[in-house]
């Protein structure tokens, strides 16, 4: 089973690109299946379902969706195997720019929308810097110049990535991504994350609602950058 993790900020075009790539994969005899992870709500399963391929939605609810994906990689792969798939495409919720839910033996795809401006590639962090493929979308909406600047900025942030210029509306780029997926080796048994998740597990993560430091435990960072451990 191959594993492709498709991450990127909400609305960046993940589902659109994924659907075009899945169609190309099917055309060449692959059997893709899709798991969409989101927080509260998504209709992506309905859209993807139109392709007639197996699709499953997993909602993380009160848990960080990226952490949720990471915990559930093996379950997802297991599910895909039951669907008789040979490629699992995992679309993330893409909210947290500090997490990068990419295991080492997967194809890490970061989908990024060029209309968000030329500084965005420098802002998205490990999601982009640890990706194998960076798919730029919505190129049809910006000038050639902006596209070129954006591309250079992506390469500044991640010099080793492959860039695929895609258009979620016309399907451009889908066959390029499918070709890269075809050449991918299967996922391994014991995979490691490429990048460490955010500092510790904080009290906010476990449900503390009160604001300000005195209510929180764990490794805490102050405004001035000072870090301390508070707790037992």
């Amino acid at each position: 089973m191959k594993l492709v993790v498709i991450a990127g900020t909400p609305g960046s075009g993940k589902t659109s690109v994924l659907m075009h790539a899945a169609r190309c994969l099917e055309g060449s005899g692959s059997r893709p299946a899709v798991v969409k992870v989101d927080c509260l709500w998504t209709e992506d399963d309905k859209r993807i379902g139109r392709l007639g391929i197996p699709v499953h939605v997993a909602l993380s609810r009160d848990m960080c969706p990226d952490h949720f994906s990471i915990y559930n990689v093996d379950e997802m792969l297991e599910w895909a195997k039951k669907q008789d798939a040979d490629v699992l495409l995992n679309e993330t919720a893409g909210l947290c720019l500090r997490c990068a839910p990419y295991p080492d033996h997967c194809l890490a795809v970061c989908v990024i929308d060029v209309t968000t401006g030329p500084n965005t590639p420098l802002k998205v962090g490990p999601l982009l810097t640890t990706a194998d493929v960076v798919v730029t979308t919505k190129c049809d909406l910006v000038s050639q110049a902006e596209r070129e600047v954006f591309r250079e900025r992506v390469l500044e942030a991640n010099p080793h990535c492959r860039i695929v210029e895609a258009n979620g509306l016309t399907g451009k780029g889908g066959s390029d991504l499918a070709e890269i997926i075809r050449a991918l080796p299967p996922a391994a048994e014991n995979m490691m994350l490429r990048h460490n998740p955010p500092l510790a597990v904080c009290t906010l993560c476990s449900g503390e609602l009160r604001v300000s430091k005195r209510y929180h435990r764990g490794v805490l960072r102050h405004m001035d950058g000072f870090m301390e451990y508070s707790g037992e």
Partner: protein
Amino acid sequence: MRLTILGGVDKDGCADHIETLHIDSGEIVGIVGPTGSGKSTLISDLEQFAQRDTESRRQVLIDGQPPDAEVRADPRRKPVAQLSQNMHFLADMTVSDFLAMHAKSRGREENLIAKVIDLANTLTGEPIHPEHHLTALSGGQSRALMTADIAVISDSPIVLIDEIENAGIKKQEALKLLAGEGKIVVVVTHDPVLALMTSRRVVMKKGNMVRVIQTSEEEQKVCNSLSRVDRWLINLREAIRRGETVSAAEAAL
């Protein structure tokens, strides 16, 4: 450079009537046809250097050869620039800062900035200043700047234009500027002036490249008359923009 399009199939699976189309450097070729006739698909085939792997199954060659897979995959090495109606500048910075950034990303000298702005100003009636904010430019100014930028900084040998007729720039000058640099220009258009400025135009119908029309001498004459009408309209528009009145004498063509 010579670009070659080898025909594929239309929406019904029938072969393109045009089997082979060659376009050489310095040539302007038009694409015409009703909405949904496959004009944008053809532009997109060119942009991607389709190798019988798009819906149309067309193949695009450079100098008789399919381009290297690397050239196709690396947008930095692709010799294509694109300009279309729905493109906007979205970066919130000044014109000169942005052009400097673009020049730098292309490994070009920053002293090209003044050249781009001067050239852009020959294409629009509303002068662009280096200190203007990109996002505050009018549609005409944006299109003029994009065109000049493609001519000077991007400098790609192939330029694809998807409908710029309503953009409020001196479109003939823009087209001449791009083709004059020895580029291959392919333009989707319904604008009679632009369509007749091309040396040939491909007619699309239901996804099929049905025929190629060579612009006749008579059509070139029509084009010249139309150009006069166009310039006349532009001058009237400028006069009105300046807050002037327009006289009957001026309004007589």
